[in-house]
């Protein structure tokens, strides 16, 4: 039984197909590495073959016919500064989340694929992507399959990836914004840390995307992180919002509904009770901010 991180081999495949072939041949012994900012902290002793997926051509961000496609190897820093992300009032929550993930040095190496595939309940990009209704494209031995991100997270550090599979692209639907109509959409991302100016994993993180038309909320998504075994979308919060005017009591009720859906734990960062309370507060604040941005 190996106890130290001593991979016997490091492979640099040239394509996604080649990476998947290697992964399929030796699924138990392989570990994927991109930025390495999580892997080299975890230092898994069972990693015998490291497969570097940073050079597979998955480092592009593209905005095409109603979709933002983000390659799994796009770094957090690239996402933080990506023009098509910053320009859109909903997509911008990806940049907000990216800007609060880790330290600048980590962000320059860490990738969106890694942030999702580690399956951390507190993953900042997961929460933002969930609020945006993202899908993941998964490449495996049987080709490419798509999955809503809501189905991807299964448990703490466990995803729906099967043997030989890897996430290749994160795809976000982008609704066209027509300034000549009354319909508006905007998002907001809020992250609570032990000290707000510090670099820390979220105590609670919240993302929301809100659609307003004629003063009424037509649709909304609220995603929560660090308050359950997986990041998730609060259906109760969305139900409390749809069809209502964005009044204080409505946003407050949505916060309470979201908090009621949490299953938090107590740990070094906060007690379960505090996390639940703060979920209500953060959801309300994120919704207020999204409404403000809709009207701006």
């Amino acid at each position: 039984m190996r106890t130290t991180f001593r991979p016997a081999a490091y492979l640099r495949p040239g394509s996604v197909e080649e990476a998947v072939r290697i992964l399929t041949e030796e699924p138990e012994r392989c570990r994927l590495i991109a930025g390495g900012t999580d892997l080299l902290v975890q230092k898994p002793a069972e990693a015998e073959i490291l497969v570097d997926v940073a050079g597979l051509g998955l480092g592009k961000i593209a905005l095409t016919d109603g979709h933002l496609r983000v390659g799994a190897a796009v770094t957090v820093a690239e996402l933080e500064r990506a023009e098509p992300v910053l320009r859109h009032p909903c997509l911008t929550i990806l940049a907000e989340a990216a800007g609060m993930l880790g330290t600048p040095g980590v962000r320059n190496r860490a990738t969106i694929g890694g942030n999702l595939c580690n399956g951390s309940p507190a993953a900042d990009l997961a929460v933002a992507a969930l609020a945006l209704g993202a899908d993941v494209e998964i490449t495996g031995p049987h080709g490419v399959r798509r999955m809503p991100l809501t189905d991807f997270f299964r448990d703490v550090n466990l995803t729906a990836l099967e043997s030989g599979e890897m996430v290749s692209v994160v795809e976000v639907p982008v609704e066209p914004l027509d300034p000549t109509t009354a319909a508006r959409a905007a998002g907001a991302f809020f992250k609570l840390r032990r000290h707000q100016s510090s670099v820390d994993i979220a105590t609670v993180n919240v993302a929301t995307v809100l659609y307003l038309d004629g003063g009424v909320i037509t649709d909304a998504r609220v995603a929560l992180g660090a308050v359950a075994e997986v990041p998730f979308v609060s259906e109760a919060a969305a139900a409390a919002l749809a069809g209502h005017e964005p009044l204080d009591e409505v946003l407050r009720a949505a916060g309470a509904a979201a908090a009621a859906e949490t299953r938090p734990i107590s740990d070094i960062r906060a007690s379960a009770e505090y996390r639940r309370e703060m979920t209500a507060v953060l959801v309300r604040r994120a919704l207020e901010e999204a409404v403000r941005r809709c009207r701006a």
Partner: protein
Amino acid sequence: MTAVTVKLTVNGREVELSLEPHERLVDVLRGRLGLTGTKMGCGEGECGACTVIMDGQAVLSCLMLAVQAEGGDILTIEGLAPDGSEAGLHPLQKAFVAEAAIQCGYCTPGMILTAKTLLERDPDPTPQVVKEAIAGNICRCTGYDKPVKAILAAAAEMRAAAQGTTAAATVTAAAIGAPEAVAVPGNVSTTTVAERGES
């Protein structure tokens, strides 16, 4: 163990190494190349002491396998003033000395290299932007005030030098350009690091 041959550029010099997969960049820089200006702090990406610049970006050399640096262009603190003379110091290094922005010095190389990438991206940052940029460079002597002042002072110096407005600034400009040019005459890659900035 399958050794991997890795070619990279370190401080303008091309090096070829035969490395084991688990070797971290920080250990290779310090142990194999003798570049001990890069410090090992926490080893988990929390402290920033091991920060180096790769392809124009500040990265944590403790969270990178050296084999991942294949083809990379790396600048360590030694490469910032390769002739070792006081006159040849980078404006950031001069500002850190002038402001006495150093206590034990362990965080200083990482802080200076992080600041260099910031100033390439944003030559005129606000104090808040500077603070956010060095948020990952922890000083356990807790001396953050002076490094922020030093970085702002260096930024002003470098802007003045870029505009060539004063005689003093012209001298500084020569100081920025000279060390790298002297150390690696004709080396394109080092110039590229300085010019490319962060994408």
